[in-house]
């Protein structure tokens, strides 16, 4: 893999920030650090792209800086989704790509599990419109200021159940094949 692929770092020991910073020298972290001066940003090693953690309060400000700065020009929002980490909240993930510079970055925002509210990114990219609607209906995140917060894939009235959360159970298979023929369950079904 080219672009800024790097050797994955060792396990995430809590090394001092200084030592962390210099392990990123061949990625785009120095320029991102410059562009996002006002935001306290924490870099992290990704398998393919650099991951940047941004606090919830000024995520849209950071995204706009990444997009409009002429040094990076992340003008293409590749994908926007969320990852449910159960106890330590839900991560909203933005994959950005700069067409002129041909570089990638992943911006991550961690939301506490009980208060999943985040400012909408549709003001920065129109692409975020449907992606946020889908993430909202799947994870229960409320994107404030979204132009049209209806459900995207789910039926209109399904606004209380969020399927992609880890808490949402898998549908139990009602009838194992055996039962269909009158053979009761448990005699050697799967473990």
């Amino acid at each position, binding site marked *: 893999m080219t672009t800024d692929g790097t050797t994955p770092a060792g396990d995430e020991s809590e090394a001092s920030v200084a030592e962390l910073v210099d392990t990123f020298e061949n990625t785009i972290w120095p320029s991102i650090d410059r562009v996002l001066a006002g935001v306290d940003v924490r870099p992290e090693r990704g398998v393919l792209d650099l991951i940047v953690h941004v606090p919830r309060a000024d995520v849209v400000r950071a995204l706009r800086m990444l997009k409009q700065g002429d040094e990076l020009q992340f003008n293409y929002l590749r994908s926007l989704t969320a990852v449910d980490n159960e106890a330590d909240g839900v991560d909203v993930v933005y994959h950005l790509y700069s067409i002129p510079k041909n570089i990638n970055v992943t911006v991550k925002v961690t939301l506490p599990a009980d208060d999943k509210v985040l400012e909408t990114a549709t003001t920065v990219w129109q692409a975020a419109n449907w992606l946020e609607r889908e993430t909202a209906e799947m994870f229960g995140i409320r994107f404030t200021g979204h132009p049209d917060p209806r459900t995207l894939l789910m039926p209109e009235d399904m606004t209380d159940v969020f399927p992609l959360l880890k808490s949402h159970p898998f549908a139990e298979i009602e009838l*194992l*094949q*055996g039962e*269909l*023929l009158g*053979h009761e369950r448990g005699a*050697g*079904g*799967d*473990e």
Partner: protein
Amino acid sequence: MKGIMKSLAVTMSTFIRGPVTRNYPTEHRELPERDRAFPILLWDQDIDEPFCTGCHACERACPVECMTVLMKDNPAHESQGGTSKRRKIVDEFWIDYGRCMRCNICVEVCNFEAIAMNNTWQGHEMSVYDRSDLVMDLPQLMSQSKAEEIQEWVAD
């Protein structure tokens, strides 16, 4: 008009090329040997019993959980005077063809080469009126292999 004339010329050229379709139910296309219709169990002709020992390997590996397997001791085992070396044999085996997604994983995980994908037209042309008729039990699964209609193909 030049472009329209060109389009007319193309359709006339295919008019002359003649039909490429075939009359399906009366003429069948010859299926490649690797064709995957639905999984079936194989019959061990010389010991006259199924290869399957009911070890649940395929049942665990199936993504859609469309298989249910029951195992029993093999009555025809050598210890009971039979000729077979298999101590365990399959007792009951159901595959719900309505749920199976034909991904061939059961054939890959089976270490007795007891299950294979049906590559005959009979495997494809199977229509039933009730969804529960799609649940195939042991005799139905072994019928084709018992009648030696199957030249199964298993990846080496």
